[in-house]
């Protein structure tokens, strides 16, 4: 079993390499089948791995080779699977497979399809290796690799200026977080002398409390960048410039959850530091709230889903911070399915509307694309937390976890955010699929997407409905017991059934109230959204303009940086460095001109110089003596 573990990441890598090398001239559209089959194979291979983990609760590891053997500093490349990794394996390869299938339809006819289908398996490979890593350095390498794939795929249509700059933005903003992450890993190495999980986690307590807090916060810095937390989430909405399947796979289901995964993986460290957990909880809650308010005001369907993603990642983050570890992972899993579903559904809408993304130009699409509608509705409901869909179970559990973790303020924020979640989700549904048809019927003929695109939707919708039941009953479900060994020493507060039911009831009421408000606003038209926005005035403007975060960054960071760069260019480079270099050059030219006279061109003279040198050296040796011959 564990002997062919390596095939799981290797197959997508092979597909990526093959498509990249031969795609342009030989494979073209055939590349999609290679990529899809490879990912399918790794999904199929992941299942027995998961089953084995589930049955005997033993973690598997397979040593591949030693990457850096430098004295005591050994970096083995070892595949390591425990319950957490097994879960992630299934999610990554499963959603990855569905997205691959979906992409066959979505990318049909694109001239760069071979490129797409080499980047996408490359991403799957990197992500799988990220979750399979058994030390922090390999983790970091593939952490960067998924960032690279994200960059390549956001900028897939690189001829589009906005796509190119979005790709750059994603890459650069992520660098900020990665920098902290890298320093955190260095600090781990300095503190513990090893960077292998087992070695580090076994001796967490040896370090001082401050060090542990700093390490935890530095690791979380990486997560802030990768998982789009405040204040670095600005890249994620822009990343929607990439093809929609990419958004679904990378920017909803898998890569952005890497930050959550790493914090969960570093549970032994993070859980030792109450301060760090508080910071994580606060940042997560703030992210969730701010992103939710922004999402309500957006008109671009993909932007709505993107901010929703940021918000849900905030949920996961504060769940971690509040000590609801399993709930966070649970939400990660359910979120992967329903958010992937929402993105693919949005992609299907965009596809059917001929690349139109503005919801103000949609409406009434229900009758044109029923399958998309129903699946999108399921995804939205799951996201909003309507019982009994997947999102309900996980989100409710997170909120319950904040209460159990003695974070009442965050709990309140979470409830408010849940309300906003319901608002923006159903706003998107009703604006897109209900109401009058606001598009230009002369130009646009909405149509249902081809089957290759709708089948993944249906599959994902099925999971969005059912996957929540792995965590049923709350706090005591199968999933909780499955993941329990990953988080040793986690407190298990006894929760009364009444409490659970109470929280579930509050969640449901909040979700349904959001649904009702939007129904009145966009279907019955008894509430005017415009009136509300005018009523709120500056608050609405704040949210609609994304809390001016981009502008603040522009003033605070980008412009000073540009000015400083100009200074470096105009003064330091053009005058100081060039002056030095030219000065050295002219000095050498001058001295060389003087020395050139020694160059007589007569070989006899050169040989004579050599012989004279030999005579002098030997003579000096003989006279002054040396210990060479004695």
């Amino acid at each position, binding site marked *: 079993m564990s002997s062919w573990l390596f095939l799981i990441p290797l197959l997508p890598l092979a597909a990526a390499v093959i498509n990249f090398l031969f795609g342009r001239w030989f494979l073209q559209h055939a590349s999609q089948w290679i990529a899809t089959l490879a990912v399918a194979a790794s999904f199929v291979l992941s299942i027995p791995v998961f089953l084995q983990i589930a049955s005997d609760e033993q973690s598997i590891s397979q040593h591949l080779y030693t990457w850096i053997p430098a004295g005591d500093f050994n970096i083995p490349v070892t595949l390591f699977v425990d319950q957490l990794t097994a879960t992630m394996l299934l999610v990554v390869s499963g959603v990855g497979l569905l997205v691959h299938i979906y992409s066959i339809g979505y990318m049909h006819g694109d001239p760069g399809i071979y490129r797409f289908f080499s980047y996408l398996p490359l991403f799957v490979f990197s992500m799988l290796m990220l979750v399979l890593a058994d030390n922090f350095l390999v983790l970091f390498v593939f952490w960067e690799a998924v960032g690279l794939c994200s960059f390549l795929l956001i900028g897939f249509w690189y001829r589009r200026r906005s796509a190119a700059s979005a790709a750059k933005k994603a890459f650069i903003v992520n660098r900020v977080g990665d920098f902290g992450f890298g320093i955190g890993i260095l600090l781990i190495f300095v503190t513990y002398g090893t960077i292998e999980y087992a070695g580090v986690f076994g001796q967490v307590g040896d370090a001082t409390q401050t060090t542990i807090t700093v390490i935890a916060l530095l690791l979380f810095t990486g997560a802030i960048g990768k998982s789009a937390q405040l204040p670095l989430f600005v890249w994620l909405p822009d990343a929607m410039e990439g093809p929609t399947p990419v958004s679904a796979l990378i920017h909803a289901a898998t890569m952005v959850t890497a930050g959550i995964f790493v914090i969960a993986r570093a549970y032994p460290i993070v859980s030792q530091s109450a301060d760090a957990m508080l910071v994580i909880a606060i940042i997560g809650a703030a992210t969730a709230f701010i992103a939710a308010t922004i999402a309500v005001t957006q008109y671009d369907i993909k932007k709505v889903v993107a901010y929703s993603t940021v918000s849900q990642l905030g949920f996961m983050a504060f769940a971690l911070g509040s000590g609801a570890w399993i709930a966070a992972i649970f939400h990660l899993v359910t979120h992967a399915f329903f958010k992937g579903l929402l993105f693919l559904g949005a992609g299907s809408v965009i596809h059917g509307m001929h690349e139109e993304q503005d919801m103000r130009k949609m409406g009434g699409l229900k009758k044109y694309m029923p399958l998309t509608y129903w699946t999108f509705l399921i995804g939205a409901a799951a996201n909003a937390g309507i019982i009994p869909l997947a999102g309900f179970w996980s989100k409710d559990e997170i909120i319950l976890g904040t209460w159990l973790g003695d974070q009442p303020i965050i709990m309140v924020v979470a409830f408010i955010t849940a309300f906003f979640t319901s608002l923006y989700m159903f706003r998107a549904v009703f604006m897109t699929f209900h109401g009058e048809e606001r598009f230009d019927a002369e130009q646009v003929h909405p149509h249902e997407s081809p089957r290759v695109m709708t089948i993944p939707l249906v599959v994902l919708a099925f999971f969005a409905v059912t996957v929540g039941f792995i965590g049923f009953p709350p706090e005591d479900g199968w999933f909780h017991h499955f993941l329990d060994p990953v988080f040793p020493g986690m407190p298990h507060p006894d929760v009364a059934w009444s409490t659970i039911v109470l929280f579930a009831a509050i969640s449901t009421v909040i979700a349904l109230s959001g649904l009702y408000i939007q129904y009145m606003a966009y279907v019955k038209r008894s509430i005017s959204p415009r009136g509300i926005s005018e009523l709120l005035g500056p608050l609405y403007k704040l949210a609609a303009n994304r809390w001016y975060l981009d502008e603040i960054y522009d003033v605070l960071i980008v412009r000073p940086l540009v000015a400083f760069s100009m200074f470096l260019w105009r003064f330091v480079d053009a005058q100081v460095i060039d002056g030095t270099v030219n000065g050295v050059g002219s000095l050498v030219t001058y001295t060389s001109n003087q020395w050139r006279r020694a160059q*007589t061109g007569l070989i006899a003279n050169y040989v*004579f110089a050599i012989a004279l040198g030999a005579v002098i050296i030997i003579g000096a040796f003989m006279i002054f003596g040396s210990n060479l011959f004695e």
Partner: protein
Amino acid sequence: MNELMPEHFMFLSAALFIIGMVGVLTRRNVLVIFMCVELMLTAVNISFIGFAWEFSQLTGQIFALFIIAIAAAEAVIGLGIIMALTRQRDTVDIDEVRELRQ
């Protein structure tokens, strides 16, 4: 000296080496200079083999073997250069080849 001593072959080696060196210094024919260089290499070989003999080691002989191999390569290249030189400049006088002066 009634026995073969290290001094014997060391003097032989030194004498041949210095004769070769003097030849390189005084002759003007590239080919003769070339032969002198070969003589110097052989002189060094004598030293190597002599020390190998004196200390019952084989390292010196192996070094000499490598020197002979490299000398063969050097001869091939050197003669090729001389051929090219005579074809281009029609001379083997080393003093007439002084383009590097420029």
